């Protein structure tokens, strides 16, 4: 994927800040976030609980509950338009036609009292002038495309009659039923699934991306999932972007102490074949209510220095498509 920089940009976020007002104070969930998704790419947003990855996705889709949520500043440019300036109707239209989303638990986003065939056909009928019969026929084609066996029969099933993996496939089919599936936001799409089913769904998303030429924003906490599917990766920590790179550079040469720590924490890491202990990141995630303007990773970072608590670092470019936000890159021992 060396040509990522020359590709056409589908969506870009500029200086996005999102907060939540609670009775205990303001939670600064996403801070000064810039990111860009190219046409046909999979961008993975990876990080642990509270890092702001889901809030980012919901900002794009305008699903942030307001209140308590506030989008304080920033732009989300999709096909030349700032999504944050659209009215509710326009957003709804966009959501149906070009941006779709799948969730961790598909059961909550499928309507339990309607047959899945009807739910998907409904998407066809809303956006195109076609008959119900035609819509159902296309639904069957789609279900075949997402490899649901015996699709003709399955369209008459209710969501609870499908297994978790099948439901996630149905959700993907519904996303594909929109007229111009441009961007698929997948929020932890395989976290609730068994590992063999996860492998199938990840494979399916990759295949479809190529066939339909759609872009995917993949939200996940799992570095393994990132390695399997992403083209580019953004690592987030406590609301901040700390490292961004194409997937090969990131895994070859992780630079930010947090990225390194995250990879070292994984028991599946190759280097642990005969190790006694894992290299854990010490401490816990900071409280987003009380966090200052410095680097949020400071309290857990092995390389932290005096600069870290004052300001958040500037971007350091260390490769063609690889940037890190860290004050003390030089402190690091060469890894691997």
């Amino acid at each position, binding site marked *: 994927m060396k040509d990522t920089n020359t590709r056409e940009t589908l969506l870009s976020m500029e200086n996005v800040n999102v907060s939540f007002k609670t009775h205990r104070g303001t939670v600064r969930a996403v801070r000064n976030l810039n990111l860009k998704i190219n046409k046909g790419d999979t961008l993975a947003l990876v990080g*642990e*609980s509270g890092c702001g990855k889901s809030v980012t996705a919901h900002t794009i889709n305008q699903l942030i509950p307001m209140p308590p949520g506030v989008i304080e500043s920033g732009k989300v440019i999709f096909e030349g338009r700032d999504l944050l300036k659209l009215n509710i109707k326009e957003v709804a239209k966009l959501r149906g036609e070009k941006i779709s989303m799948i969730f961790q638990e598909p059961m909550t986003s499928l309507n339990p009292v309607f047959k899945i065939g009807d739910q998907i056909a409904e998407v066809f009928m809303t956006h195109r002038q076609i008959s119900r019969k035609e819509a159902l026929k296309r639904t069957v084609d789609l279900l075949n495309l997402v490899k649901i066996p015996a699709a003709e029969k399955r369209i008459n099933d209710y969501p609870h009659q499908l*297994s978790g*993996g*099948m439901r996630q496939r149905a959700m993907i089919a519904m996303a594909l039923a929109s007229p111009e599936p441009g961007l698929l936001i997948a929020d932890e799409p395989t976290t609730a699934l*068994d*590992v*063999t*089913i*996860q*492998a*199938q769904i*990840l*494979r399916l998303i990759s295949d479809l991306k190529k066939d339909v030429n759609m872009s995917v924003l993949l939200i996940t*906490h*799992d*570095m*393994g*999932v990132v*390695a*399997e599917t*992403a083209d580019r990766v953004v690592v987030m920590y406590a609301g901040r972007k700390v490292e961004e790179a194409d*997937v*090969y550079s990131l*895994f070859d040469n992780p630079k930010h102490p947090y990225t390194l*720590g*995250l*990879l*070292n*924490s*994984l*028991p*599946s*890491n*190759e280097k*642990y074949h005969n190790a*006694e*202990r*894992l*290299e*854990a*990141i*010490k401490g*816990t*995630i900071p409280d987003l209510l009380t966090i200052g303007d410095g680097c949020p990773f400071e309290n857990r970072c092995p390389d932290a220095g005096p600069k870290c608590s004052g300001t958040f670092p500037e971007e350091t470019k260390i490769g063609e498509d690889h940037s890190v936000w860290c004050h003390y890159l030089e402190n690091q021992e060469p890894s691997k």
Partner: protein
Amino acid sequence: MKENVLEVKNLKTYFTLKSERIGSEPEVVKAVNDLSFEVKKGEILGIVGESGCGKSTLGKTIMRLNHKTEGTISYKGSEIFDLDKNELKDFRKEMQMVFQDPFSSLNPRKKVGDLLAQPLKIHGMTDKKEIDEKINAIMREVGINPAYKGRFPHQFSGGQRQRIGIARALMLNPEFIICDEAVSALDVSIQAQVINLLLDLHDKYGFTYIFIAHDLAVVEFISTRILVMYLGKIVETADKDVLVKTHMHPYTKALFNAFPATDPQGRENKEQVVMGDVPSPIKPPSGCHFHPRCPHAKDICREKYPELKEVEPGHKVACWLYE
């Protein structure tokens, strides 16, 4: 050879579901279906499998928190389902459990100090000072500041809560600990801390662990021996090092293959992933339960369940390919 602390023989735990229609035959879930294995003193037995494979039911049955339908579970030579009230209390002292969900496994209305004092009080310790000292010592042991005794569980993060859960399990100086998905709900960086803690405790006190998880990498890292389950049955078991190198059962292979590597190199030409869904444990497929998803299925696989056979010392597989 170390002695066996736990011996499970032909264990079956079935659950009868309420019949859906009046008069229809009630459905039976064979959650644990004819399992036999031993656990040696001081070993870490990892049990891995996907949802519905019965691994959690197995853990709870060994703790006598579930009923058993058939078979025997003998702990240090005595059948745990035959223990009387006092013997059961002693057994509860020796065998402890750490649960998956650090949100629901700690009573939200109890302060940490009370949560940790509870096991001591149940087992007859009354001296306040003694209890307090013990709590302080254990809290330090698991890495929680004893000054936080007066806090409620919700005032801690997930990782800290899991440490509290572990502390509670340690209060009675157990010998045997069953960890049921004990690190699955935690963030990776926190998960690593808790795994290290569990290993430190193992080295220090010589606990015997059964470590139940769906995450192959975690089980592989922590265990000394691994048992792979599929739909209530053991499909393969071997020492960790052996299993990692030579997994023989097609399901074990599929598991290892499906597990995402933390390296994007070579992902384009990865082996084909195993197809099909995990079948419902209510109506498992005939013969070998894995045959509908197995690329090597033969006629006999559809008809008869293969026995768990030793293929090399300590390595058992239940598959017709190795008959």
